[in-house]
């Protein structure tokens, strides 16, 4: 894919992410026996927030909100343009760092608590993504996304344990129950995003749509060159994490980090070691 196509696709990804979020809200409502909002609801929210007056705490805080959007967008662009997987991961970490710094820069205690928990989220799930990048390299022989997408191997068959680990940590990256301690709407009212309003909240809100595509693109990569299998994996993981979101309660941050470090990361490492042994 050329850079221009990737650029246009990255711009469109905002709309696709909005649809995914709208679909998620409907699916979640149906699972709870409700009707749920219309599919276009995220866009209604988007245009309404455009019209709201924005209250700026201080300019740096507002700037960090916008940088969070740009950072996630750039991480997605790296993925879609077939760039290096590790660079995409690091840009994603950077964009979350913007959110965290913004969260720490205001005096609201909820914002500070949320930013701290956001850091713990990163501690929990980021190693898993780096490990999966390494594992994809071992299977396909390249860190380039374009190479992985055209590879003859299907990484899923070599990395089943790692796939399960990434699937179970999806709620952590998308901040859904059971791993939604950073956002925790009933408890700390959105965490680092609590002080954003109007257009700046809109930036944070749309950045979350882009994170959906970012996370699901990772799932898609596990199918390698087999794109139909990839689409099936994405659809399965979408419904799976919605189900998980609905049937589980929030765990505290210790349990979240412990679950990632004692169960998911060892699973991933075992898979990685087996594949390395088998290859040599």
């Amino acid at each position: 894919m050329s850079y221009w196509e990737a650029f246009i696709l990255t711009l469109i990804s905002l709309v696709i992410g909005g649809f995914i979020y709208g679909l998620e809200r409907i699916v979640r409502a149906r699972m709870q026996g409700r009707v749920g909002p219309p599919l276009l609801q995220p866009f209604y929210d988007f245009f309404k927030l455009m019209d709201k007056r924005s209250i700026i705490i201080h300019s740096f805080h507002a700037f960090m909100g916008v940088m969070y959007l740009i950072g996630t967008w750039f991480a997605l662009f790296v993925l879609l343009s077939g760039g290096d997987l590790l660079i995409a991961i690091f840009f994603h970490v950077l964009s979350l760092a913007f959110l965290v710094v913004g969260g720490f820069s205001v005096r609201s205690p909820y914002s500070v608590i949320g930013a701290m928990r956001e850091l713990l989220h990163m501690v929990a799930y980021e190693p898993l993504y780096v490990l999966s990048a390494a594992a994809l390299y071992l299977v396909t022989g390249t860190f380039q996304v374009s190479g992985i997408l055209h590879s003859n191997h299907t990484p899923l068959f070599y990395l089943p344990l790692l796939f399960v680990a990434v699937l179970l940590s999806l709620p952590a990256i998308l901040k859904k129950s059971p791993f939604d301690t950073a956002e925790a709407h009933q408890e700390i009212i959105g965490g680092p995003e609590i002080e954003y309003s109007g257009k700046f909240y809109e930036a944070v809100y749309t950045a979350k749509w882009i994170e959906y595509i970012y996370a699901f693109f990772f799932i898609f990569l596990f199918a390698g060159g087999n794109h139909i299998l990839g689409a099936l994996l994405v659809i399965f993981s979408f419904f799976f994490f919605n189900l998980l979101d609905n049937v589980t309660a929030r765990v505290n941050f210790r349990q979240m980090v412990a679950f990632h470090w004692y169960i998911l990361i060892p699973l991933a490492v075992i898979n990685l070691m087996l594949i390395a042994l088998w290859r040599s």
Partner: protein
Amino acid sequence: MDFKSFRKKSPWILHYNTGSCNGCDIEILACLAPKYDIERFGALNRGNPKQSDILIVTGPVTKRAKERLLRLYLEMPEPKVVVAVGACACSGGVFRHMYNVENGVDKVIPVDVYVPGCAARPEAIIDGVIKALEILEKKGKEVELPRWCSVEVKPPVNRVKLLNRCLEELHGRRRG
């Protein structure tokens, strides 16, 4: 482009209890539950004043709650509307003229829609919210202050100073 028509499609709700008996609050929660499900209309209970459009207030506004009520109201960005839900919030209800209450929400902040009832039924609350959305669509974006408040608003608005001046006046004010 005119975004005003999108206001009524995504009303985000902030709910505050100013010393109510919890009857009205339960009914508001019933609106969000599967039977009435106001998320069909895009309404979400945000619990965050900075991202909400509709302030739903229950209770007769006790002495302790009035400062918080004013803070929440001034922290909400414009355009915004206030819905007073229940007999207490409209007029003080059974608590009217007691030493510790303010006799209704409109003694502290401007109210757009009154929903009577003890407790107000979910249908009545939904109706009130729909009425509030009609008002919200016509509202401008200038800063609104309570009637008793004599603070002048000059753009650019410094919200912290505005809030502090309003609070000073609230505490200095005699009960009328």
